């Protein structure tokens, strides 16, 4: 130990920890980058191109090589090589400079879309992964699952029709349900509707929607629609969105003659000494969490009031069917109630 010096020991330690950090840090670590690059092969590129073409086709837009290289993250020459290969294999064909899917190509792309949306559904129902991460994980898994695995996953999930964002999941035979509704940004003032779809791309806008706490399946009423902003009410709360964000929400307009539950609010906005009746549980509460709430007695028609507030204000204990059950604020925001007319006891 003649060469020992605490300063050197510390420096060596710092150096080693830096290297470990650089290799294994989340997402950008060298280990993950190399692992992801190894899994990027021709198949991935082909499938991503097919999927993009399908999305272009679906939204009624036309795709050419330029628009494809714009949306895909691969190197341009790789994309062009793969497109050549795909035309030879008759997955796609050119019409002028516009790229189109052949029937084989469309079937293939529907299979990829099916895996993607099923996987998002799986993440929502069976895991605790945050919804901001669903898309990227599904992007990865869509190239991994075989057809048999996909089908067994689908039957395990009860053959769902829609993914958690409200996008339809294609069936094995390639059928796709229609998303009802129009973009929120195009709704007139005072129109009433129900959010049927929340677009998860681009990432930046989706994160804003998550941060606003907007829930799929909730009924809304537009109160202002100007080029600067769109204001609407949903579940007793007011939301202000930029039109570009609002365009990513699809709303199915409801007929005004249908009974609209206007005074439905979130349980999180109930105050002490008020009583209410439960209207239902928002579609944002999924899988195990939803079933747990039902098991505990948070069912339609149940009387509910606040029993206790924790000293730190969160969670709150609610009195349901004679039992005191504490819920956190984010859970309470997913239970819909209607306040009783006569306040207080």
């Amino acid at each position, binding site marked *: 130990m003649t060469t020992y010096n605490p300063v050197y020991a510390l420096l060596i330690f710092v150096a080693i920890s830096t290297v470990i950090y650089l290799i294994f840090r989340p997402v950008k670590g060298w280990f993950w980058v190399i692992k992801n690059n190894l899994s990027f092969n021709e198949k991935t590129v082909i499938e991503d191109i097919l999927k993009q073409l399908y999305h272009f086709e679906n939204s009624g837009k036309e795709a050419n090589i330029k628009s494809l290289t714009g949306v895909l993250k691969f190197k341009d020459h790789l994309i062009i090589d793969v497109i050549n290969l795909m035309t030879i294999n008759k997955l796609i064909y050119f019409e002028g400079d516009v790229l189109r899917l052949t029937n084989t190509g469309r079937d293939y792309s529907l299979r990829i879309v099916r895996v993607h949306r099923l996987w998002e559904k799986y993440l929502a129902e069976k895991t*605790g992964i945050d919804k901001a991460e669903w898309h990227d994980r599904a992007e990865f898994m869509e190239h991994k699952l075989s057809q048999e695995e996909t089908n067994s996953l689908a039957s395990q999930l009860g053959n769902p029709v829609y993914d958690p964002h409200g996008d339809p999941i294609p069936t094995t035979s390639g059928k796709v349900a229609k998303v009802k509704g129009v973009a929120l940004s195009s709704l007139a003032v005072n129109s009433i509707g129900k959010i049927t779809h929340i677009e998860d791309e681009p990432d930046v806008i989706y994160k804003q929607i998550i941060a606003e706490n907007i829930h799929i399946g909730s009924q809304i009423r537009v109160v202002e629609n100007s080029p600067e902003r769109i204001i609407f009410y949903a579940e007793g709360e007011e939301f202000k969105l930029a039109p570009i964000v609002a365009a990513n929400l699809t709303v199915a307009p409801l007929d005004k003659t249908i009974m609209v539950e206007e005074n439905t609010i979130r349980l999180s906005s109930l105050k002490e000494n008020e009583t209410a009746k439960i209207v239902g549980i928002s579609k944002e509460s999924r899988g195990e969490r939803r079933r747990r709430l*039902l098991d505990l007695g948070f069912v339609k028609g149940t009387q509910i009031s606040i029993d*206790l507030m924790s000293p730190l*204000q969160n969670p709150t204990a609610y009195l349901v069917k004679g039992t005191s059950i504490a819920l956190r604020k984010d859970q309470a925001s997913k239970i819909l109630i209607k306040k009783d007319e006569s306040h207080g006891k």
Partner: protein
Amino acid sequence: MNTTSVEKIIALSRDLRWQIGDEFHDNLAEGIYADASEIAMGSVSSDNSKKRFRLDAKIDKIVTSKAWGFPIMILILGVVLWITIIGANYPSSMLADLLLENFHPFLKGLAASIGMPWWLDGFLIDGVYLAVAWVIAVMLPPMAIFFPMFTLLEDFGYLPRVAFNLDYLFKKSGAHGKQALTMSMGFGCNAAGVVATRIIDSPRERLIAIITNNFSLCNGRWPTQILIATIFIGAVVPASISGLASLSAVISIAILGIFFMFVVSWALSKTVLKGEVSTFNLELPPYRPPRFWKTVYTSIIDRTLIVLWRAILFAAPAGAVIWLISNIYIGDLSIASWTITSLDGFGFLLGLNGVILLAYIVAIPANEIVIPTILMLTVMATGIAGGDGVGVMFELDSAGETATILKAGGWTLLTAVNLMLFSLLHNPCSTTIYTIYKETKSVKWTVFASVLPVIMGFVLTFLVAQIWRIVF
């Protein structure tokens, strides 16, 4: 039916699925729940439930109030721990007197009278018996005091209120409020704390609670902390405040443990555990008078004896190993001496020494025998006088004598501080490891929970040692 008509029916059913939409299942299930509750409301009548509820509500208003919630909680936990640590001293020393001072020489005498060979006598009596006796003497009394008190609080209905009060803090680190309870239980015994995580029904939060339970300083480690703090920390300050100084040193270590518990919970929930399902809910049951004798009985049978039995099962072979490594010679040195020499370099880097590292390896079965093992190994390695013979663990009556031996082993204030840190941050004892496996049924999480704290311990003691040597 031929295949085409079967296919037609399947296709038709698929089409119908589209039409009824995806809310159908949910609506059906919720309808059933709602119907059931309506039927129950119509046919079940309840009377005088309101009256009882009012007293509950009054107690609840106080124990969850902003002003009183936290002080009451800290007071109760403090009293429980104090009674445990102080109260366990007397039965512990009685048991030690009986099992170690009287029964051990008696067994030795018996072995000698029937002419047992020295190695069998050493292996069985000095090795296996002594380790088992030690674990019983140190472990049984605190557990027999702590668990019934804890179970009484649980039975009364107070503990769910603690979880309710603290949930927000635990939520911030991705954990469940009930982890406050399993953590407190861990102050008694980590194995029991791990078993107690069954009250957390959300899979992710339960794993977090299991993995971080080891950061609660358990009963097996309190005596080590107190002894080392008394000898080394108490000695650097004026005698008038030495008691206070060593006490606050021990409490700081316990608080540091709580701090690590929060940090590690947070890190786990952000990284390796983020995929696990998380469901939160907390029932606040009505208060009820605890059934005293039943509680005491079940807590002693269910918690104390089961944990003790597991500890004995693991301590027996450990005792054998301790005796063997000190008595089997390779060349002119025992296995223990060889290991100590080879671990000394690494130990020095961590501000510890080879004896401590070896003691922590052989004492994996029970933290209770760390100090006796360290003393025995120090005497052996330094060749000073003292102790009861090679491979025979011992403890000394006075802290002063212990200090003499440890200082002869080259201990400094840094060694003491780092031992206290390492005692907090090292692998769980084998009883706890086994319990983690039983509870998680997963080798992966068991290994993870065992290795993570050792690595943290190495890093922390290393950093402290280097900075200490640079500063002083």
